[in-house]
């Protein structure tokens, strides 16, 4: 009788061991190699394409002042890369053969990385803003031109070319 009991215990143990190994946790694995391409790019936008100052009495309006021009800069560059926005005037303000020096067309600017003030130039691009690394930047620029009695009458024009560089 004693022998029979031990046999039963052994048999149960075997069953339990068998059950344990049959349902042991199993794992399977696989992998995927992921590649993301991030290339250099630059995007510049201005809120205004035209500034038009109507005639005004120089004693009343001593300085022509534009509405603020919003400048949005988006750039992807290498780590530590310099992002720069420059402005180059196409020439002096011109009306036929009459001119107003473009370096009297000045600006004030606001926004992180923007030059607080500056004067336009027709030969050397002037820096409006500089940043480091990729990112979005937004600021505003207000242009001003003194309104002098000495100007000859006419409609004076100039084009300001903005260039965003992100190496």
């Amino acid at each position: 009788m004693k022998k029979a009991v031990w046999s039963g215990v052994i048999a149960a143990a075997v069953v339990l061991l068998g059950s344990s190994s049959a349902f042991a946790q199993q794992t399977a694995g696989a992998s995927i190699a992921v590649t993301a391409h991030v290339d250099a790019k630059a995007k510049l936008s201005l809120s205004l394409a035209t500034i038009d100052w109507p005639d005004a009495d120089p004693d009343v309006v001593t300085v022509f002042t534009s509405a603020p021009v919003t400048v949005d800069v988006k750039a992807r560059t290498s780590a530590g890369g310099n992002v720069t926005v420059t402005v180059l005037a196409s020439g002096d303000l011109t009306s036929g053969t009459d001119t107003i020096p473009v370096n009297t067309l000045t600006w004030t600017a606001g926004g992180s990385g923007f030059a607080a003030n500056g004067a336009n130039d027709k030969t050397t691009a002037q820096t409006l803003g500089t940043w480091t690394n990729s990112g979005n930047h937004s600021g505003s620029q207000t242009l001003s031109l003194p309104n002098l009695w000495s100007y000859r009458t006419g409609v004076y024009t100039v084009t300001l070319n903005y260039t965003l560089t992100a190496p």
Partner: protein
Amino acid sequence: MRLTVPVLLLIVLVAAGSAPAAQTSNATLNASINSAARLSLSSAALTFPDADPDTSPSIQAAQGPITVTAKARTSPNGTVTLTVRATDELRSGLNTIPASNITWVASGAGFTNGTLSATTAQPIATWSGSGERTGAHTFFFRNLWSYATGTYTLTMVYTLSAA
């Protein structure tokens, strides 16, 4: 003496005919069904092409949906789980982009949407009991202007567990 011999033969034959005609025996059939797990993916590579962040703020992987086939044998009502973990953040030299900028949208019974992590295995699917399941997930890369340029890589490791 001539009569005696046939009688004896007849007795022997009758005796033989009365013996049992069938026997029984037992045969034991053991079928061992152990737990098992098998996982297959339709692609071993995933590529996110470059794109303008303004027009493509989220870039879908060029390979399209990845089909996942998970086969598992487990105990009755045992839990079968499929997880994925990134081995690292997206890395291009010294530059990194968090792996969490990769997300997926899943289809198929038991499959769930999720966000990749380099620190914690993220659940992709959970089931109960043995079976073969198929689903798909489509990966997306969050495309930001702030990333430094480069070719970023990481490896996603899938693990299928059948308890």
